[in-house]
């Protein structure tokens, strides 16, 4: 279980996150939503250990984040941040293979190759394996990074595992958005706790279990997606009109109209 207990984060003196709590259990997908600048990436940074928390604490599998051994932590949770172009022209398969860095020396070359192959197939990037990542489109690179995260967690199957993603579908076409979220659903089915920053409320309703909506560094709403991602809350937080469209059984949110 991943827990944040009233955490606050300061960046250059300004409070970007103010007393946010969350709790994410194994096998569930938590979508974090909110307007630009609401603190979503700061929350992810605090949960990943990149940003120090000014107040409150982050617990991963019951242990405070700062008490984790680096390698142990990397074997337990993977993070994919927003696109950061790699410095050198590594082949896509090499980048995906970096997921095995925390497991260096534990497995045979054949096992490593199998894990990388499976993860790249799951993210539909097998055909790009030998291409330099610097030549891929942003969306393709995003999927390669996700394959890397899948590789990183693959050997820990059966143990507590966590996946933190910052806007994983931001640069993807609709098919790959659904492919990626379906892959996350499958991972959750295997017991991985997934936290993803998303912008699309309908994707979140369709694929996530719970939602946390941030506004100005505070939690504006939290709970199961069915209760949180409804016209009233969405229109208030995002300050645009929102209403249901479709039938009672198969409905989605129309925004801005």
């Amino acid at each position, binding site marked *: 279980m991943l827990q944040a207990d009233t955490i606050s984060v300061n960046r250059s003196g300004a409070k970007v996150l103010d007393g946010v709590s969350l709790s994410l259990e194994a096998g569930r997908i938590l979508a974090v939503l909110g307007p630009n600048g609401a603190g979503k990436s700061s929350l992810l940074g605090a949960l990943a250990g990149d940003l120090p928390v000014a107040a409150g604490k982050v617990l991963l599998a019951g242990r405070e984040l700062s008490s984790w051994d680096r390698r142990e932590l990397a074997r337990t949770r993977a993070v994919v941040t927003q696109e950061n172009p790699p410095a050198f022209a590594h082949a896509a398969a090499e980048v995906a293979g970096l997921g095995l*860095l*925390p497991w260096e020396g534990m497995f045979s070359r054949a096992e490593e190759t199998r894990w990388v192959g499976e993860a790249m197939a799951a993210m539909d990037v097998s055909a790009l394996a030998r291409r330099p990542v610097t030549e891929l489109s942003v969306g393709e690179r995003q999927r390669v990074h996700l394959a890397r995260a899948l590789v990183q967690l693959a050997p820990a199957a059966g143990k507590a595992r966590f996946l933190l993603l910052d806007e994983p579908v931001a640069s993807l076409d609709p098919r790959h958005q659904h492919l990626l979220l379906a892959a996350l659903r499958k991972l959750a089915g295997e017991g991985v706790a997934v936290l993803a920053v998303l912008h699309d409320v309908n994707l979140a309703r369709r694929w996530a279990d719970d939602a946390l909506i941030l506004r100005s560094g505070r939690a504006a709403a939290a709970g199961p997606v069915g209760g949180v991602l409804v016209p009233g809350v969405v229109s208030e937080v995002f300050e645009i009109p929102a209403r249901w469209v479709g039938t009672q059984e198969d409905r989605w949110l129309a925004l801005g109209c």
Partner: protein
Amino acid sequence: MTARSRAALPLLALGLALAALLSVCSGSSGVSAGSALRALFSGPSGTDADLASRVVWSLRLPRLLLAALAGASLASAGAALQALVRNPLAEAGLLGVSAGGSLGAAAVLLLFPVLAGASLVSATALGAAFAAALACGFVLFLARDREGGVSVTRLLLSGVALNALAGAGLGLMLTLTSDQQLRTLAFWMLGSLSRADWPSVAVLAGLALPCGLLLAVRARSLDALSLGEPGAAHLGVNVPRLKGELVAVAAILAGTVTALCGVIGFIGLVAPHLVRLTLGPSHRNLLPASSLAGALLLVLADLAARSLPGGLELPAGAVTALLGAPLFLWMLKRSRL
């Protein structure tokens, strides 16, 4: 490992071996290639009577080995610094490591003129350059930003400042020297392998080997650094420690080479770049291949430097700069900086 990278290492090693043979067989002393080879394979004779043996075993062989080790060291230092700053344009000269080394060595040569010309000179200069390079490493460490990481911008700017400072120090010393010292200093500052002897070879080998091994162990972490420091940290890499190791390794390698051979530029830039173009950036291939390529380049540059008609000898550093500087400008033009 692809077929290409499997073939590259043996090919580079073969090239280096051929260049080494060529280097042992050629020189201005009038020893024929055949007698040089015979002297090489019959081992050191132990007496001064055999001219060929003396030339090969006390002049050409140490010079060849020093060139190979220095080339490999400069290439490794370059690869380490490029991984550290995530930019293929980084080099020991850029961070002020080489300048610090030459300032330290020059200080020893000038403050203790008794030693100048003595066989002890490399060992003494080594101590000074080593200290200077380490001091540079420390100053670079001080280039830390408030959040505790070494910021690349600060690092590069510190390098610029250090280079200027070391240059000013050297300039000051040059104005204070006698003409004879000036000649010694100038020749040494341009970078040359003409002072090679067995102690220098032993010192450089003793330092370069552990540094190379450390880099080899960290190959995959260096790849991870390509994702950026947070990305590497998420993969379990101890980023602050890795950065410290890279700065230390680069300072030791480049500082020592500078003390023993003077400033030899661009090997650290050219060798890793050529390897990346052919084998890709994976450090498991890049580190061994660019070490071999750096060794090959400097052996060839030294060979070219002392094969001029009329028995003239150019400093090897001038040859590497002549070839390397245009390549650097070309890379700069093509890069997205």
